């Protein structure tokens, strides 16, 4: 506990921006805690961290912490992140987005940033809904679910965020729930260590809207649901496809090597400068 208090003083902004805007029982706070612990144990300097967000409940996250922080437009966090990383590759760039933010309005930016393999750690908080606007269905809302904008049931199928990231070219892809806070901290630490584009999907709970829609009315019930439905990737191998469909596979799903865009560009600059000097 003492150690946590120390982290609070070290990383939270003490000026007038508290209390935060999140509902009681929201999972984003658990993610923020895990992120701060991962950054702290990674030994990064606060001056070198740029924490970027899009719009939505997750968009407010950078406001509260003492880094270089940037709250951008809806879905576009990764575009700003790309500019920052390329302008100053020595910065550690982290983008926090929601499921609607990253895969609906920002879907195009998400796949192309992954394809380019720009050195950005992206954290997608997936609460299966648009929380800030009042519980409309998102690209990760289950088929058939009645929400405030699908009163007769959702007719759309869902995105697998990790699958999307893997196919688009991310060099590190992992998933955790907020219930598995220690695992979450661990995989964020691994993601921060990657040179290229890394994605951490965080299954979170929006009790206020999504919980109500699926009949889990309290944060505790939702966290228990995460506990009971998550299966570690190592154990998932032994399960049949039908069994897996109902499960959330957690752990490191992809970890591969590929040259990061900003590294390639650095080499290009060196080459062009050399040729320029020769002329």
């Amino acid at each position, binding site marked *: 506990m003492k150690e946590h208090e120390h982290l609070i003083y070290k990383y939270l902004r003490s000026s007038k921006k508290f209390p935060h805007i999140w509902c009681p029982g929201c999972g984003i706070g658990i993610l923020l805690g895990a992120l701060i612990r991962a950054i702290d144990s990674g030994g990064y300097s606060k001056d070198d961290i*740029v924490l970027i967000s899009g719009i939505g409940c997750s968009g407010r996250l950078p406001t509260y912490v003492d880094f*270089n922080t940037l709250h951008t437009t809806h879905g*576009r966090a990764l*575009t700003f992140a790309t500019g*920052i990383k390329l302008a100053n590759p020595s910065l550690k760039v982290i983008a926090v987005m929601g499921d609607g933010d990253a895969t609906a309005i920002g879907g195009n930016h998400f796949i192309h940033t992954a394809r380019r393999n720009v050195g950005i750690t992206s954290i997608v908080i997936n609460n299966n809904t648009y929380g800030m606007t009042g519980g409309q269905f998102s690209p990760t809302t289950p088929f058939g679910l009645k929400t405030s904008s699908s009163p007769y049931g959702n007719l759309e199928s869902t995105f697998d965020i990790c699958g999307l990231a893997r196919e688009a070219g991310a060099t590190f892809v992992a998933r955790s729930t907020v219930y598995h806070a220690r695992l979450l901290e661990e995989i964020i630490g691994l993601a921060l260590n990657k040179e290229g584009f890394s994605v951490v999907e965080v299954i979170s709970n929006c009790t206020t809207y999504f919980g109500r829609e699926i009949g889990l009315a309290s944060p505790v019930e939702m966290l228990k649901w995460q506990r009971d439905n998550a299966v570690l990737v190592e154990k998932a191998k032994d399960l049949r496809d039908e069994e897996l469909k109902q499960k959330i596979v957690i752990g490191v799903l992809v970890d591969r090597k590929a040259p990061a865009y900003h590294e390639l560009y650095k080499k290009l600059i060196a080459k062009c*400068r050399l040729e320029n000097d020769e002329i």
Partner: protein
Amino acid sequence: MAGCRFYAGYPITPATEIMEQMSRQLPKVGGVFIQMEDEIASLGAVIGASLAGLKSMTATSGPGFSLMQEHISFACMAEVPCVIVDVMRGGPSTGLPTQPSQGDVMQARWGAHGDHPIIVLCPSSTYEFFDLTIKAFNLSERYRIPVILLADEVVAHMRESVTLPPKEKIVIEERRKPSVPPEWYIPYDDRQTDVPAMPAFGEGYRYHVTGLAHDIRGYPTTRNDEVGPLIDRLFNKISKNFHLLQWFDSYETEDSIVTIIAYGSVARSALHAVKEARKKGLKVGLVKLKVLWPFMRHTVMTFLESSAKVLVPEMNMGQLSREVKRVNQGRCEIVTLNKADGTMLSPKEILRSLEDIYP
């Protein structure tokens, strides 16, 4: 030469040549070029790079310019310097690729959502394009505001020989960095000046940047006693310096009875028409505007007062002429000459119009 070290863009006719040049030149000077997935992403990356300390720009044409409006608005609110070139082509929609137009004059002023000031510069020659690009970067850095270079296709594709000034004669401005240590730094401090100092990310000043209305520390606020002064300051930084943004050329206006007010390639046709008309003994003149927004109302007013008639030729259905009429308030008669069929306004057409309206 202006110090630009970052370019992000998306191919679009007739602005692609700018991007191709930047992809070749920037890495030679240690800068970065990136081709993004669309124009929204392009301006996002430009703003990001600017926050990380690099002078940054993008270039596009009408359809891409529409996509950029979201981030122009962001750059206005968060006060991030950046330069956007819009090479106007015929519209609406996909319209007339590679054919000239001046249809984005009002979009450049009002396209981004929310009430905001903006600076829009308009070149009419290759040299002016060079000169105004440097000025655009200087103004953008000085006032922490997006600056739009609004060119038409004719000027953008024009080839003409230019004499560049010696490097030491070119004035390059840099954004003001904080002079206080990080613990004293207030990101949007409005007590001393309307344009707060701006450190780059990574320089030790850890501050918050947001598109939300914010207080002087940069944190979101909805308090009217904080939002009001913020919006006032955003406007003040331009309106208080209005007198520094009066760039125009005038020809034969000392005794002109009919004066043309024009910009971009149309001003070139107009100059030709004025020379022809003078040969015929008509007392006509030309005012060529290089700043479209903020509109140079005091400058324009003097010509409205000295002329019997003012002709505003434009390659659109009448955009800047509305502003001229607003300023005119009955001072003289305003005549418009409009064309939006994808061809440029020729000297002959302008001359004919001059002869028609000459009293």
